[in-house]
């Protein structure tokens, strides 16, 4: 793609508030985790040396609460990050950057350069024989590469491969993650 590509406008987007929120949450949960460990260790030590008493029991309750807090905090961060990523994906598509989305998926699936190229041609609707001709490879090579692409993407057909991107276009999960 050339520099004149209008979609380059989207490249300098700033991280924005939700991403800051996720970072802040992560820092808070980290502090909470430290507190949780202090209490758990303290309760364990008290219990080992002094046995169970009201004081230890009280501390144990706090320890459990802190641990639960960390778990829910982590889940909340996960939700926030998912939301950010969905929004980013939707925005990229809205700005006509489907290519970027496809590239991100190829990246995530860990496709090799050759596989990515074959996959792209397949998405564009080229038949195996045509892809082989374009790439100067044999049809069987292309078929093997396509099979690898499907396996890495967790799909079984070209239609399903396409639907992965369509899914993002519609902003909803049709196939489970």
């Amino acid at each position, binding site marked *: 793609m050339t520099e004149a590509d209008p979609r380059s406008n989207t490249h300098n987007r700033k991280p924005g508030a939700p*991403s800051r929120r996720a970072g802040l949450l992560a820092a808070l949960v980290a502090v909470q985790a430290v507190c949780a460990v202090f209490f758990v260790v303290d309760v364990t030590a008290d219990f080992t040396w002094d046995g169970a008493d009201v004081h230890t029991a009280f501390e144990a309750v706090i320890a459990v609460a802190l641990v639960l807090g960390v778990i829910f905090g982590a889940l909340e961060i996960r939700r926030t990050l998912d939301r950010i990523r969905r929004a980013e994906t939707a925005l990229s598509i809205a700005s006509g950057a489907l290519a970027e989305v*496809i590239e991100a998926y190829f990246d995530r699936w*860990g496709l090799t*350069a050759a596989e990515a190229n074959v996959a792209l041609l397949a998405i564009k609707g080229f038949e195996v024989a045509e892809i082989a001709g374009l790439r100067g490879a044999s049809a069987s090579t292309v078929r093997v590469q396509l099979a690898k692409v499907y396996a890495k993407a967790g799909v079984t057909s070209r239609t399903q491969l396409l639907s992965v991107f369509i899914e993002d276009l519609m902003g909803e999960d049709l196939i489970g993650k």
Partner: protein
Amino acid sequence: MSQPSDTLSGPVIPPSKGVNWDPVVRVTHWVVALSVVLNGLIVEEESQLHNWIGYAVLAMLALRVLWGIVGTEEARFSSFPPSLLKAKAYAQGMLHGEHPAQRSHNPIGSLMVYAMWGSLAVVIGTGIGMEVFDIYEMEDIHEVAANLVLVLAAAHVCGVVLESRLSGVNLIRNMTIRTRSRGPE
């Protein structure tokens, strides 16, 4: 790398820019790294501070384990299972200048990460054994494992720098600066 894309007016696939690590991975990483340096090289071993720093590392490891189960896709353990075979294949690819895009730690990095976590767990376990349960026989194991962590960490940093150079993916930036723009620089 022949790219027929030019003739098809399709996008040329740019080289991978690597995994943009999430804030939980970053926070836990840098707290662990700082604490290991402090406890292993700087802080007085018998001080209370040494124990507190050690507990902070335990907290980060626990959080990271939780995150490895419920976290983002790239942070999950299932995204970087330890595999000697894959590591060997990856090393051979490296010799041929291949750097396939990664969705998480690369297979060699993955082995290193588990090795560091494992030895850190031993260091912390024996530390707590001494401090909380008065089992001072553990001191030697504690020391050996702590030195192992330091050696692994040094190798880890060399590996990260080397891989960044070879693959052209700035791994360190992906672990430090908050969010990278998605497009080409």
